[in-house]
């Protein structure tokens, strides 16, 4: 059992497994944010949805005995916060980014407040699908212990891409995001489209939170999220508002987060704080490289060009 998987191959597999494990919450939050931003609003508060989702998912799973009810509850909690964001932002002069920050504060505060009672108990967790059964190596098998939520997320990404390109509703969302004037000319209710996009986005972010508490790392406490919800917002820009790219970007971020511990576990111990900063530096560099004041980003909703 030992030896065969030591060294860099082990790191590679660990990073791959980590990409999936750590990346799944990123995936859900970024898909949610992508949907919201396509409709022309930024919801910076998805960190609040994520934490609130993690808490309510764990709480409901514990109280009901069903982890899947927990996931649903997490989504609903996220949707509620999303609805709050949408309703506030459609008022005149109300800044969507500021509301996002406020909701982040409110969501995490509420989750911590209500979540006190659920730090101790052990709730039923989500099961995993063993996709690595073919392999003789326990390492590969462990890396391929895939959660159903990841599969759903992986399918959701191309589905959302298709939705934006081909579905009528998808076109509506895009039109509203590209140009309010055009949307009004087409007789679309801008606020309503944005409302549903933000609520659905909030739902997805809540589900992403339930992955944290119900699967990986799989418990509820106040330090559970280290800002994944905030990072996911950055990730959407990184992925240029393309749901399929969100999927790849989430894996990349997840893998980058797994890199530090993986390198230390084979004895490369220098500068782990700097390795921990890798995802941020990477995003920043790519943002700088792909932005230009002359050229609007491909895929960027029109409402974002000021």
């Amino acid at each position: 059992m030992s030896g065969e998987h030591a060294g860099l191959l082990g790191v590679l597999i660990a990073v791959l497994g980590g990409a999936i494990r750590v990346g799944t919450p990123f995936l859900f939050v970024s898909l949610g944010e992508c949907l919201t931003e396509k409709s022309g609003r930024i919801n910076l508060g998805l960190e609040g949805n994520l934490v609130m989702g993690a808490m309510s998912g764990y709480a409901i799973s514990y109280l009901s005995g069903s982890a899947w009810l927990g996931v649903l509850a997490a989504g609903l909690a996220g949707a509620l916060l999303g609805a709050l964001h949408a309703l506030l932002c459609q008022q005149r002069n109300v800044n969507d980014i500021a509301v996002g920050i406020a909701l982040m504060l409110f969501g995490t505060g509420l989750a911590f407040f209500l979540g006190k009672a659920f730090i101790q108990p052990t709730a039923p967790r989500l099961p995993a699908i063993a996709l690595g059964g073919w392999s003789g190596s326990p390492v590969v098998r462990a890396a391929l212990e895939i959660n159903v939520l990841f599969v759903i997320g992986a399918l959701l990404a191309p589905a959302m891409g298709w939705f934006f390109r081909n579905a009528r509703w998808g076109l509506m969302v895009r039109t509203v995001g590209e140009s309010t004037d055009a949307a009004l000319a087409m007789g679309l209710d801008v606020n309503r489209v944005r409302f549903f996009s933000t609520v659905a986005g909030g739902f997805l972010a809540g589900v992403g939170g339930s992955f944290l508490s119900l699967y990986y790392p799989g418990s509820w406490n106040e330090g559970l999220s280290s800002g994944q919800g905030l990072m996911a917002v950055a990730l959407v820009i990184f992925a240029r508002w393309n749901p399929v790219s969100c999927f790849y970007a989430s894996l990349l971020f997840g893998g980058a987060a797994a890199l530090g511990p993986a390198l230390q576990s084979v004895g490369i111990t220098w500068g782990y704080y700097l390795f921990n900063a890798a995802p941020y530096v990477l995003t920043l560099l790519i943002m700088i490289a792909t932005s230009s004041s002359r050229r609007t980003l491909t895929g960027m909703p029109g409402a974002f060009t000021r």
Partner: protein
Amino acid sequence: MRLLEPLLIPLAALVVSLLLFGVFVALAGHNPLQVYHSIYRGAFGSWFSWQNTLVRASPLMLTAMCTALPARVGLIVIGGEGAVVVGALAAALVGIGLNGVFAPVAVIGLMLLAAMACGGLWVAAVGALRHYRGVNETISSLLFNYIAIAILNFLVIGPLRDPASLNKPASVPIGSDNMIGNIAESSVHWGLAYGLLACLTLWLVVRRSTMGFAMDVIGGNPRAAYLAGLPVGRLVILACLLGGAAAGVAGMLEVAAVHGRLSSSVNAGYGYAGILVAFLARHNPLAIIPVALLLGGIRASGGLLQRSHDLPDATVLVLQGIIFLVILASESLYGRTPLSQRPGVTR
């Protein structure tokens, strides 16, 4: 009458948020009136509580500026946290390096300058990226925060670590002579004066100078500003520079007035709260003073809520969140209240 709006709307919003919060604590099984009383007692009920509030308000005044000033040119920057860290780092390096070389007054002055310069440049980079490369300033400033914190942690546990700092990795002290003391006999350090001074100065810049006027033009309509021949890029970067410099001072205060050295705790969480203060003050440097006092007071009362009502510490987070949300929602009321005599002409 319209002059009353900026005063009455936030006050009404505050009352509404307190009522909502009252409902919340009542649902959680506590007597709202007693909780209100404790908040008052913990924040403003005695000279002791006032000092408690003031000492928390001063860094908030400074970090709020990091969001308020860029907001005047239309940028939403949330990089106060990073600027605090960078300012603290710069101040600590200067303080350690010059400890005993120059007189304390000079060391403190140089620490201040270094913190302002580094905090300012850190956030100015965000503004420059926005202006010249079109990089979203909100996201880039967020990333800058994480990067600054990672650099701080790396330095504190690695190259800058004082071997004598046993169970809390930290740099060597900057020397007790180089510390900023408390105001008179109080337990409030001189950082309060720095905060007030920054608010007043920047208010004058924003409200009374041509530059401030030009910034407002840019914030209102960048295209018009271009057409009017304003140096948009320079002003955008300058606004970020000033905001970052203010937040850098908050970092310097953590080193020179609180910790006396560099440790991971110099990042004391004032950056994100500062964003809240800036928005509540509608990016007006003068209004930041009372808002920072209010927020400082709420935070100061958190401990008493825990100890006398057995409420979790997240209670004050919830209260801050509610106030923030209600005040933001109240933004839509400006120009629509009965106080605004000629509706429709506004904005």
